[in-house]
């Protein structure tokens, strides 16, 4: 049932010009960034060769491209997710899902899976760019794998937050702004709050703050370090916001 809803969401995304526009714009930005980095790398390559252990092309070209992708997703995901619940409510099509013999959990998970399928497509395009270089050079496949994992986890947590924001209002644009604001707040405050809590020696609140700080969890994986806590945190964040969205949907049934 989750996949029926996911397929419906994916179809709805591709039926709207927005998804195609997002795909195009994201690809243009990332493509430009990637080529620029590659160009810079080729220019300083001779100087790098003189270092004792020079950073490779994966660290200097692929990693920054992934960082750019993370920043672009911060804008793209609220736009892609904004319609998922808000517009169904505005057009009163939500009734079809709510009257069908499916649970609220299945509805939210279906929408989440549909959105993630689309995001994986974007991530696939991101992965494809550094992979192209493997025809001419040797890549650090381990680093590429952790970078990809980090991006998927980041996308999942952004998607969950945006889906929750979409469940709060019947105006898609308001939902997009709300999720954008929520994500920005988490990026800035989660990080500083975590640091200051840790500085005071409050380890447990600091650990909680890290759950709410997607970028903090992106960093270790981005350096190729498999930090289990940095993997668990975004999963917890995703689960928490999906749960909030489910509760929100159920709350609408209770409150009317």
């Amino acid at each position, binding site marked *: *049932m989750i996949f*029926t*809803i996911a397929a*419906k969401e994916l*179809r*709805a995304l591709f*039926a*709207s010009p927005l998804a195609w526009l997002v795909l195009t714009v994201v690809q243009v930005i990332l493509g430009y960034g990637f080529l620029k980095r590659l160009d810079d790398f080729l220019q300083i390559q001779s100087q790098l060769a003189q270092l004792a252990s020079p950073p490779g092309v994966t660290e200097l070209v692929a990693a920054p491209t992934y960082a750019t992708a993370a920043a672009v997703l911060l804008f793209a995901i609220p736009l892609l997710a904004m319609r998922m619940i808000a517009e169904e409510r505005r*057009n*009163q*099509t*939500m*009734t*079809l*899902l*709510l*009257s*069908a*013999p*499916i*649970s609220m959990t299945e509805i939210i998970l279906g929408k989440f899976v549909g959105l993630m399928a689309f995001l994986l497509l974007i991530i696939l395009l991101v992965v494809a760019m550094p992979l192209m270089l493997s025809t001419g050079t040797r890549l650090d496949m381990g680093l590429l794998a952790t970078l990809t994992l980090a991006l998927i986890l980041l996308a999942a947590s952004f998607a969950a937050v945006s889906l929750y924001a979409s469940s709060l209002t019947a105006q898609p644009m308001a939902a997009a702004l709300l999720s954008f604001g929520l994500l920005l707040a988490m990026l800035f405050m989660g990080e500083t709050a975590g640091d200051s809590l840790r500085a005071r020696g409050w380890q447990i609140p600091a650990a909680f703050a890290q759950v709410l700080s997607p970028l903090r969890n992106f960093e270790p994986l981005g350096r190729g370090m498999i930090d289990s806590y940095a993997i668990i945190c975004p999963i917890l964040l995703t689960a928490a916001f999906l749960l909030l969205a489910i509760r929100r949907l159920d709350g609408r*049934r*209770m409150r*009317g």
Partner: protein
Amino acid sequence: MRHILGIFLPDHKATRRKASIPPLMTSPAPELTVSARGLSRHYGTHAAVRGIDIEVRHGEVLGLLGPNGAGKTTTMRMLTGNLAPSAGEIRICGIDLLEKPVLAKARIGYLPETPPLYRELTVAEYLRLAARLHRVPRALCNDAVTRAMQRCGIADVAKKLIGSLSKGYQQRVGIAQAIVHEPDLVILDEPTVGLDPNQILDIRALIRELGSAHSVILSTHILPEVEAVCDRVQILHHGEVVFSNTISGLREFQRGRTMSISLHRPPAIEELRKIEGIATVEADGEGRFRIRFATDADPTAILVARASTEDWGLHQLVPAQTSLEDVFVHLTRGGTGGDRAP
């Protein structure tokens, strides 16, 4: 030990027999497709629906009538699990909707006031989605969709985008969506609103046909519609059921309560109003009057006696052709709850 067993065994048997009775009694329960008791819904301090009971038997068409804001849509949203009732219980084919929503909802088809249509899908795609969401097995989906389209007369637009269809066709797609999974209960919220007269006739014929195989609950404020398609009618007013009866019972209920009287030499209208047991008198012109009797009163004999003694020239006294409209207006405009029929 045996003593204890001796005491306990019969008791135990008795409880087991007791426990086994309800399933036996509920096995012919599909007879009752919907049974809702004491249904209430409050929005803050405002009570939209207050303790109403609804029962629909298998193959019955129930009309929910009422002025705008009487609580029809709220009731339907509760019956379909879209809205949680503040109080009361709902059973669909014996399954508790609030405890087992997924099982119960599989037996319901619902067309809300605004049909929940995805404009970017074609009719066939949309109906397939609706069938899948209602857990029709994948292998049977195509058949179910084809059958629903044929019944609703939309097979010729199967490949068109829903967004490009006229309102009438969209409404039919909405009905097709509600019946694609062959539910036991079809709930239609104002299914003929905004349609042209031909389309209304088509949809009514469709609803009648649905009523033979499914149970149907229909809300409307078009009164002839109820008389045309419904077996039973409940009138809601301020969130309460003020009238509940079969259509034939409705006619029975009204028979003899309104009379049309024709007099050659009519007295002043106040004279008629003064007669005990007469609630209202309306002059229809040319010596004709429409007289409504007060509750539990039959002043026909007095009327005839007065007419002969005072030489009014009585030449016609017939039960007026009463319609649902009379009942409706009577009950929902200053009418008292005392007219509640069984």
